[in-house]
């Protein structure tokens, strides 16, 4: 048994970690209580097997690539960072990337991850044409929109609970360069931030970084980052058409003592960040895709900043109607506490594609909290506001929501469960997350 945790390092639990070398080996590894694990970037307990965990990052071969269509077939353990570094210079990028490039294709499909373009281009699953799935029952099936569509739509966003994704065929977008033309807008409060995001609906990429310790008149003040793929003619002379992604060199060597993160340091950081961004507001500039999409990747192991006890991310989505009041309420409570960390992220989402996909048209807010004190009670309180507003929480970030919160948030759950049962009648595929939220007790 090995101690395993997600990116938030909470909870830490025992699971038997297996690293098969062949697809046949993956099949052999599946027994009662197994789940697939990609690169462990889900925050909570989604990628921890109830009994055993099958590590997939060894499977990183590209099967085929057609430069005429941008269609690629690859093994599910391939990291997005690898895909970007390999195909970016050839003029191809994934349609959708999350806030870190260190996720696997399997993990990106299983969480149907969203990027800064979800409001106009949808989620990761939209660009997946088919998958090769090892079901809990022991079959290997190809699933697509036409073939085994139930398995296909349950696997997109299904958090690994339909089986192990072995391979996927997906479409890449063509780009002229690896640069993004970025425009920063500063918003002095929540209304301004939401207006700016609405106005950015036609921008390919948009996201807001909220200062979540600002209170009163400043509540919700933020910086909105809009982005478009830059063409070759927009680059300064001499710039390579594809930038180099630096390895995250500087790491956090040890767990910082919990004291380092206190309301004063957080407040100082947010103040500085907001002011520096506001100074740049209005103009536009061309930046490398790496800092634009993956600002946190430059600091390796940054999750250790939160200390040994780990941290929780709370990411909810609130349907558009009535979102303003609920977001203001949540942000107000968070600001009064003062210990939500660094910046919060606010962005608009569109329709999700998978049966259990997180996105729905509305606003999503993501907040980080160190694990300490009464944080679990506080988050339960926030959940009640989310539920009352017909919102839901993102499973890829969750480590603690209640069954009730989950069940109300995901009304398609019974349909998902029926498909899951047909693919895995014996109930072999189980994670700590599914034990906590799905499985009959």
């Amino acid at each position, binding site marked *: 048994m090995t101690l395993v945790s997600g990116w938030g390092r909470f909870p830490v639990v025992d699971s038997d970690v297996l*690293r098969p*070398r062949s697809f046949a080996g993956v099949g052999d590894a599946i027994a009662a209580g197994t789940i697939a694990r990609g690169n462990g970037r889900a925050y909570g307990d989604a990628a921890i097997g109830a009994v055993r965990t099958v590590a997939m990052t060894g499977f990183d*071969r*590209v*099967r*085929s*690539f057609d430069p005429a269509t941008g269609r*690629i077939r690859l093994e599910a353990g391939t990291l997005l960072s690898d895909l970007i570094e*390999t*195909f970016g210079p*050839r003029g191809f990028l994934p349609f959708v990337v999350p806030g870190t490039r260190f996720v696997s294709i399997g993990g990106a499909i299983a969480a149907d991850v969203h990027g800064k373009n979800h409001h106009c281009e949808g989620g990761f699953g939209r660009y997946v044409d088919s998958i090769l799935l090892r079901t809990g029952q022991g079959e290997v099936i190809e699933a697509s929109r036409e073939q085994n569509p139930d398995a296909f739509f349950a696997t997109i966003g299904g958090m690994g609970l339909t089986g192990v994704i072995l391979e996927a065929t997906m479409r890449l977008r063509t780009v002229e360069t690896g640069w993004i033309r970025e425009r920063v807008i500063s918003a002095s409060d929540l209304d301004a931030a939401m207006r700016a995001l609405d106005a950015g609906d036609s921008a390919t990429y948009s996201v807001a970084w909220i200062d979540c310790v600002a209170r009163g008149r400043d509540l919700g003040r933020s910086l909105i980052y809009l982005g478009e793929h830059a063409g070759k003619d927009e680059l300064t002379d001499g710039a390579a058409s594809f930038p180099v992604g630096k390895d995250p060199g500087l790491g956090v060597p040890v767990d910082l003592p919990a004291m380092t993160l206190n309301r004063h340091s957080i407040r100082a950081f947010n103040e500085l960040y907001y002011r520096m961004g506001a100074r740049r507001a209005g103009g536009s500039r061309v930046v490398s895709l790496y800092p634009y999409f993956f600002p946190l990747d430059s600091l390796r192991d940054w999750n250790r900043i939160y200390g040994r006890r780990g941290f929780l991310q709370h990411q909810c989505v609130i349907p558009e109607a009535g979102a303003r009041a609920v977001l203001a309420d949540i942000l107000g409570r968070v600001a009064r506490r003062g210990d939500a960390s660094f910046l919060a992220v606010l962005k608009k989402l569109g329709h999700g594609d998978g049966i259990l996909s997180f996105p729905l048209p509305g606003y999503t807010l993501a907040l980080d909290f160190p694990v300490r004190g009464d944080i679990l009670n506080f988050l339960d309180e926030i959940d009640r506001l989310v539920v009352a507003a017909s919102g839901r929480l993102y499973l890829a970030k969750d480590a603690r929501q209640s069954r009730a919160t989950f069940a109300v948030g995901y009304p398609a759950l019974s349909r998902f469960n029926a498909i899951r049962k047909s693919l895995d009648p014996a109930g072999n595929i189980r994670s700590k997350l599914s034990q906590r939220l799905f499985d009959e007790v």
Partner: protein
Amino acid sequence: MTSRKSAIVLGGSSDIGRATARAFAKAGYDVVLAGRDVAALEPDAADLRARYNVEVGLRKFDVLDTASFEGFVGGLPALPDAVISIVGLLGVQQNAESDLAHATTIMRSNYEGPSLILGLFAEKFLARGHGTLVGVSSVAGDRGRASNYVYGSAKAGFSAFLSGLRARASRGGVHVVTVKPGFVRTKMTEGMKLIGPLTVEAPVVGDAILQAVEKKTDVVYVSGKWRLVMLIIKTLPEAMFKKLKF
């Protein structure tokens, strides 16, 4: 036809072999993957073609079948610019202590076969006047240890062969690289206790091999820390060394 450089990787299906083939293909080399099970190498060949748009060939190669070596070299469509031998077998020291067949296999896989095949290529390269030969040896060959001296002694023999070959071949325009990875996280070392700061991932070894070929380095300790560690281990007096538990 193509003026691209080419490399052949012997032992292409190992983790280090895969990583090395990727590093060379990424740098624009056409690659030949050679190994015992050609069918098992096919997915890796497809991976390299799809990723880097280079030509990838497959060849059957068994390091224990020394009788096949001349036919293997002669059967290649063209002489490559670089030959990289990743082949090796860790084996189980305890078994090798009493099982002569197992000890023999370890010795032959790490010393006899790799030396003979690189020696054969050396003759062809010298006749042509250029080329690079890379042997992946081990820090374990720097000093025999109680816990793995069968493997270590074979690697020591291989290292000595490479340094001698280097001295001779350099006069004829042929370069020889000795690579000494320390701990590498691969399927060979899976389940072993590796010392974190001294352990690298396979792609780091692949990149180091490419660098060594391009920059004409003689001996590469993949993690620089190993050079120091092995310097200390090599200079310990025998009387003290034999009391240490490694």
